[in-house]
């Protein structure tokens, strides 16, 4: 079947056909490569193309002379319908090669609610879903990214997972594979070879056993296979590959701009935050390198916006001179600067004032919890003075709209903590009235946005029982009733059942895979899109698989609990996480580890840097 020809017939019938055509600037075309890799993003093109990890690994893999990496995305439902009607298999964007003809398909696991899309893509590709049903000719299915830190719900569908950062380990996997392929080694032996590479987890070599109450008894690995898989890190970001000629999409994507990465990791130790735990240690790029990468990327792409990426922009040690320099560059070339996750200090205001100027679009601010007590529990080191001081400054400088982010359902949360959210909004509104002399027309617009806390693996809160959807609903209504009495305050909140399903998939074990399959079979895809999420289908799938969602999402773990993800070592020890969980319950803070080592266990694998006070 000539896919290109068949595709041309379908394209006039679908929305945004350029999602499927390729031909972007800097797309790579290669012939006669020893290994063909499909980098698969289990969501639409616009979302996948906004992801820096895709750009990095596309470069890393294509820099390997013997490897050719192409891209795969989840077709939108209209395209899927057309493809199934025309019996067109899932194909690569670059050369329109059927995905099943590749050597590897590498799925990036960015959010749990994308899992049904993975099964759908495998099915569209004509590849058996279950690892054990795949044969010598089928591609190896590999997963990586943040959700691979608990790969177990997907264990039955994947041949292997990469734990941690992929820049170094993917080329290692490729060269081991090419060697094995040339030696005509069988599939199982290839997997044995790959499991010897640090950071590689081959789920079929691990066997969980369960206790009568449903909890895991133990997870045994096959002889010669490591009991635990240590994550991979790139020790020095200044030497790490970075895309200077990234793909430039032909259609508008979610983040349509150049990106430079300031640093990886975060030293703050917020107890709810998975990224803050698993991406340790903090590794910064030098300002000189960042600026030269920014310049080269802008020159190669023609973008008119550049964004700085990190978990907490303001924590970059040379943030002021760097931002000043980038802004100067931007003024000269009509390039705007985007600074996500900025702490609202006086320098930030100076910068935001210049960036946003007269058209102050809005300010976002994340206190996360409504009271000092609960912020201590979650180890978010921000005080009431920080909040009201920066809001006073913002309103004084002319901002008319602020968005406040909170979580509900955090451990130890009480109704007083929810009152604290209302009080925070009320006090900010009072500041606005005071500064405007009581004029209603000058009043600011406050959006209180509340998300449901989802406990994640490898965090101190992995033991926490998520609030039931009913309790979350009750809390939302409690907040809604009280916030509506303050004029100028708007309230938004997340879908409860979706958050519960996210917790199930985040913390699930190997048995959850069956439910994912049933959910997909009953028609679930794009579960992260609220309008596509079908709770009743998920409930049916769990029932069919004989699983109890509360067991996974809404039950507090015991201290000695064996978690499904205990076979993964994220660098931070379980002992540290447990001590943090206990400190959380005692409302005790743990300091930022730049100010002194807090003993998380990372020094076992990395030098966290002497300048951080060790």
């Amino acid at each position, binding site marked *: 079947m000539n896919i290109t020809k068949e595709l*041309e*017939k*379908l*394209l*006039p*019938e679908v929305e945004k*056909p*350029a999602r499927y*055509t*390729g*031909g*972007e*600037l800097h797309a790579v075309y290669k012939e006669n490569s020893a290994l063909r890799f499909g980098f698969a993003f289990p969501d639409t093109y616009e979302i996948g193309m906004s992801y820096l990890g895709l750009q990095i690994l596309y470069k890393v893999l294509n820099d390997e002379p013997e490897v050719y990496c192409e891209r795969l995305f989840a077709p939108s439902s209209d395209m899927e319908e057309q493809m199934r009607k025309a019996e067109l298999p899932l194909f690569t964007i670059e050369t329109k090669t059927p995905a099943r003809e590749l050597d590897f398909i590498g799925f990036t696991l960015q959010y749990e609610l994308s899992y049904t899309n993975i099964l759908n893509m495998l099915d569209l590709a004509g590849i058996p879903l279950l690892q054990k049903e795949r044969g010598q000719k089928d591609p190896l299915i590999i997963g990586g990214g943040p959700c691979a830190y608990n790969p177990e719900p997907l264990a039955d569908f994947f041949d292997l997972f990469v734990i941690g950062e992929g820049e170094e380990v993917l080329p290692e996997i490729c060269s081991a594979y090419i060697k094995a392929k040339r030696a005509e080694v069988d599939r199982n032996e290839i997997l044995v070879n790959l499991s010897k590479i640090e950071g590689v987890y081959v789920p079929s070599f691990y066997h969980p056993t369960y206790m009568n109450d449903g909890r895991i008894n133990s997870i045994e690995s096959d002889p010669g296979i490591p009991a635990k898989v240590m994550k991979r890190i790139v020790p020095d970001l200044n030497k790490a590959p970075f895309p200077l000629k990234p793909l*430039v999409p*032909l*259609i*508008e994507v979610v983040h*349509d701009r150049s990106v430079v990465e300031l640093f990886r990791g975060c030293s703050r130790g917020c107890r709810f935050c998975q990224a803050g735990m698993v991406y340790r240690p903090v590794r910064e790029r030098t300002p000189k390198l960042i600026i030269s990468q920014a310049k080269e990327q*802008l*020159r*190669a*792409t*023609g*973008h*008119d916006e550049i964004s700085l990426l990190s978990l907490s922009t303001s924590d970059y040690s040379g943030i002021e001179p760097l931002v000043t320099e980038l802004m100067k560059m931007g003024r000269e*070339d*009509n390039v705007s600067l985007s600074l996500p996750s900025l702490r609202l200090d006086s320098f930030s205001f100076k910068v935001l004032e210049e960036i946003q*100027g*007269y*058209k102050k679009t809005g300010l976002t601010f994340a206190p996360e919890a409504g009271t000092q007590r609960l912020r201590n529990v979650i180890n978010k080191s921000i005080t009431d003075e920080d909040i009201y001081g920066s809001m006073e400054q913002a309103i004084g400088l002319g901002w008319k709209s602020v968005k406040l982010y909170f979580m509900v359902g955090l451990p130890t949360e009480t109704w007083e903590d929810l009152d604290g959210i209302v009080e925070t909004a009320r006090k900010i509104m009072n500041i606005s009235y005071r500064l405007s002399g009581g004029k209603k027309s000058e009043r600011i617009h406050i959006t209180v946005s509340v998300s449901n806390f989802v406990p994640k693996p490898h965090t101190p809160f992995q033991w926490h029982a998520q609030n039931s959807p009913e309790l979350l609903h009750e809390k939302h209504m409690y907040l809604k009733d009280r916030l509506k009495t303050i004029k100028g305050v708007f309230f938004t909140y997340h879908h409860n059942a979706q958050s519960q399903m996210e917790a199930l998939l985040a913390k699930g074990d190997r048995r959850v895979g069956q439910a994912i399959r049933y959910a997909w079979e009953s028609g679930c895809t794009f579960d992260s899109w609220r309008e596509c999420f079908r709770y009743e289908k998920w409930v049916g799938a769990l029932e069919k698989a004989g699983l109890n969602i509360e067991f996974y999402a809404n039950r507090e773990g015991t201290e000695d609990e064996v978690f499904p993800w205990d076979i993964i070592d994220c660098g931070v020890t379980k002992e540290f996480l447990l001590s943090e969980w206990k400190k959380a319950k005692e409302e005790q803070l743990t300091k930022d580890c730049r100010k002194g080592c807090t003993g998380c266990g990372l020094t076992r694998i990395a030098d966290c840097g002497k300048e951080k006070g060790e």
Partner: protein
Amino acid sequence: MSAYILRFEKSGTIRFISHLDLMRQFHRAFKRAGIALAYSQGFNPHPKVCFGQPLSLGHVSVGEYIEFETLGDHNTKDMIAALNETLPQGLKVTAVRPFTAGKRTIAALVQYASYEILWNGIRDQMDPANAAKDFLGQDSILIEKRKKKGNFAEIDIRPFVKALDIEKNNDGLVVHTTLAAGSNANLNPEYLIKALFAFMALPYEKETFVIKRLDLFDEEGRSLGETGTEENIF
């Protein structure tokens, strides 16, 4: 500051990007080519670039136009080379010349567009020359057009068809037509084809047509490439 007009082609799979996306492609290409555009003054500066007439998604063209202002003076041949070096596959600049617009932008000048439409369909005993004549000989040509609100309105497209010619070739039919285009009156050639094929009792399937725009014209029938106050033409 210097002002120019350029003509470009859109072909291949890039025909599936929208007008907005196309504009973005050119803004970026100018940047990559090192051609600094002049920006408007005011609170929200934007580059001084104006496109002739949006081309429907899925159509190809050999006659698209952009007028633009640059900060410095540029050699037109160098600009063509620099832009073509960096434009994505399927977009190609075919000519650039200095251009001083009159009072109106090129977008406001557009009154007509000419198209070549290929149909790789069945060949039968029909006489295409007569079909075109009979089709245009109708008092009115009514089509159903979807309105923004989702309901349909019946409109007469006969006044929007300036010329129509149909020939047979080895693969099917070649239709040449000149239609009203621009902000005053505009007819998408797909509507014409739909009406024409219904008139000829031939099946209309969108994906069986290749629609190519050939050129854009002002009210006096001059190609946009020949407008402006300069003497020299492409």
